């Protein structure tokens, strides 16, 4: 059976499963559509949250980001997990106690202001729509690669699938579909990692293999990797090479941003009790950690495999003890078939610049050291592995390790599961904000439950259409939008929710001006360096470290925005009147788990 048929079977089977679940778990009421009737077991909710949270970026890109940068990109590992500690302690239990359906609804009630609620909706829409464009693009690319269709057709297929199960099932259908998608994606991620770890380190667990020994050389794996990459003229893998300030700031921005993402927060509305919201955050992190502790092993081992493929001598002896891989081997050898497959996608390319029949992979910007000496001795005219995309590190992993065809097919199904589950979660957050906060909350408060459910489904269908159209014609900023989404969530949603719970003194003026200060400053800072609305050439300052304010990268600025939000809210609240007594009682009531009504705990 050829690879294409296998891919088709595995992807088809996984979709049949998602559809089956969607039909079984159809939402019949708004409570089911927005919050799955608050009947989801905390462990199940943890699993669904993990799938909701881990997007195409986690599944496809993260290991590659770590592979080519090493220690400095640990920021993603710590940042995208540490946010759950903040969620579990600072937001989730209290918002669950509040017991409503959407994030803007809490902002509106706590700050007794329709304006605050609408600003909350605007923040949520900007965050979720920018995020969903990236997911739809991921779906399109994955379909294009594995089903051999164009990226456009891939996008439409993906949109149709999300439409069926998210519009039909609402939160209830999406929750159980995400549980299935989690299982598919974690199997897809760990199977190749286990095989590769066994081959390189003899360790069954990739988490142990990373800190174990390298079989072929007998050295410790990370020591060997450091040696190989520095021989090739790259920076040491385990060393800290970048700015410490930015590492701290970026990690913090990712953590606060994670805790402020509306589509993650609403998942905690689905569990039966307040105590379940706390433990469910823990379960979510357990399931996320299964992938996040494998990712650094996948990244480092893929980097090792790539280096030793290009320099066969590096595996057992000195890096340059044998000549580089030959052009002939790359073009004909069955073991290197993956290089030819991936060259077709444009994610990998090579060029024999000096015509010696060998492809030398090294850092041609290094002016001294072993790589520069080797380049001089062999008469090289630059690095000959001209393009290696980050994304290849996970997707090509099973092929690099010569794993059977069904493993490749399951990785394809896993990549799609990761992108689709996140897209569905985002679309739920968007449709909830439109139908519940805008239509029921502001435009037509007397809408019947049946009409609201219909409005929720229609707004979701419209969101899918908008996301697909934007995915087809990305405004040129797909890769940067994630940074924007995190920065905005960190600077707007997280601070306002936290102050709403932990302070009784912050009033509506404080919340409104705080949110505006946080978002506006973050947007302004990002646009200054990335261009207005990311249109290239419209940036006011060049995006280099020397130009950054106090050396803070645009992606890390969400932390400063959050700080401004807190500061402005505090100052404005202190010069204006206290919140009404009924609001102060609301805050008292969400702080204790007991009772569903307001202020019943005294």
């Amino acid at each position, binding site marked *: 059976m050829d690879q294409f048929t296998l891919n088709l079977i595995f992807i088809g089977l996984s979709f049949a499963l998602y559809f089956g679940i969607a039909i079984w778990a159809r939402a019949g009421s708004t409570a089911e559509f927005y919050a799955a009737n608050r009947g989801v077991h905390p462990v199940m909710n943890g699993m669904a949250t993990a799938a909701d949270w881990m997007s195409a970026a986690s599944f496809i890109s993260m290991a590659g980001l770590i592979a080519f940068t090493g220690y400095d990109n640990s920021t993603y590992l710590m940042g995208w997990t540490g946010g759950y500690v903040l969620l579990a302690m600072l937001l989730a239990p209290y918002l669950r106690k509040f017991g409503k359906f959407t994030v803007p609804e809490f902002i509106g009630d706590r700050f007794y202001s329709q304006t605050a609620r609408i600003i909350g909706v605007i923040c949520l829409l900007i965050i979720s729509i920018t995020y969903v464009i990236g997911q739809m693009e991921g779906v399109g690319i994955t379909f294009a690669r594995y089903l051999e269709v164009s990226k456009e057709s891939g996008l439409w297929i993906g949109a149709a699938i999300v439409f069926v199960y998210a519009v039909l099932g609402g939160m209830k259908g999406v929750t159980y579909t995400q549980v299935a998608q989690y299982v598919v994606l974690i199997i897809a991620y760990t199977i190749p990692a286990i095989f590769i770890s066994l081959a390189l380190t003899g360790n069954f667990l990739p988490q142990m293999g990373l800190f174990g020994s390298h079989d072929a050389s007998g050295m410790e794996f990370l*020591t060997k990797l450091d040696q190989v990459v520095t021989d090739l003229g790259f920076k040491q893998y385990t060393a800290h090479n970048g700015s410490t300030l930015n590492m701290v700031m970026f990690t913090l921005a990712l953590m606060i941003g994670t805790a402020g993402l509306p589509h993650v927060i609403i998942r905690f509305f689905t569990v039966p009790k307040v105590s379940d919201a706390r433990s469910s955050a823990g379960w979510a992190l357990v399931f996320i950690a299964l992938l996040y502790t494998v990712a650094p092993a996948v990244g480092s081992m893929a980097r090792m495999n790539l280096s030793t493929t290009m320099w066969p001598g590096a595996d057992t002896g000195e890096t340059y003890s044998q000549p580089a891989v030959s052009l002939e081997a790359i073009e004909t050898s069955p073991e290197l078939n993956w290089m030819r497959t991936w060259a077709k996608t444009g994610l990998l390319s090579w060029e024999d610049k000096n015509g010696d029949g060998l492809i030398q992979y090294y850092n041609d910007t290094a002016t001294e050291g072993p790589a520069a000496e080797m380049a001089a001795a062999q008469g090289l005219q630059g690095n000959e592995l001209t393009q290696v995309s980050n994304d290849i590190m996970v997707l090509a992993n099973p092929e690099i390790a010569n794993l059977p065809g069904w493993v490749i097919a399951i990785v394809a199904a896993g990549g799609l599961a990761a992108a689709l589950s996140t897209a569905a979660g985002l679309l739920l957050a968007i449709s909830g904000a439109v139908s519940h906060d805008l239509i029921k909350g502001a435009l037509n408060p007397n809408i019947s439950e049946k009409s609201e459910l219909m409005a929720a489904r229609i707004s979701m269908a419209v969101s899918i259409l908008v996301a697909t159209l934007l995915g087809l014609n990305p405004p040129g900023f797909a890769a940067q939008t994630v940074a924007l989404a995190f920065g905005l969530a960190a600077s707007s949603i997280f601070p306002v929710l936290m102050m709403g719970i932990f302070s009784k003194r912050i009033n509506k003026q404080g919340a409104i001006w705080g949110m505006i200060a946080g978002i506006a400053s973050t947007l302004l800072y990002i646009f200054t360096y990335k261009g207005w609305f990311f249109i290239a050439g419209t940036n006011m300052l060049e995006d280099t470290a020397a130009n950054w304010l106090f050396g803070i990268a645009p992606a890390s600025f969400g932390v400063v925005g959050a700080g401004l939000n807190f500061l402005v809210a505090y100052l404005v609240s202190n010069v204006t009147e206290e919140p009404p007594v009924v609001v102060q009682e609301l805050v008292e009531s969400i702080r204790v788990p007991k009772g569903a009504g307001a202020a019943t705990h005294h």
Partner: protein
Amino acid sequence: MSDKQSSNAYWQANIRIIWICLVIWALVSYGFGILFRPMVSGIKVGGSDLGFWFAQQGSILVFIVLIFTYAKLMNRLDRDHGVEE
């Protein structure tokens, strides 16, 4: 973060637990993982050092323990103050 008005013992105890957890949260990630890495670089962990381990694996494991510990402590606190569901 708490207000003067919020003097009930349950909430104060919750805030105290949160502070302790967040200190540990910051210590394993920003502390050992980044800022104090040079100070503990003498402690070797499989081909690299303790700071690298915390940054790539240790901090995530500690985060999990922290959340479950918090959930457990809060369940006990809820019962002690009679505010459980």
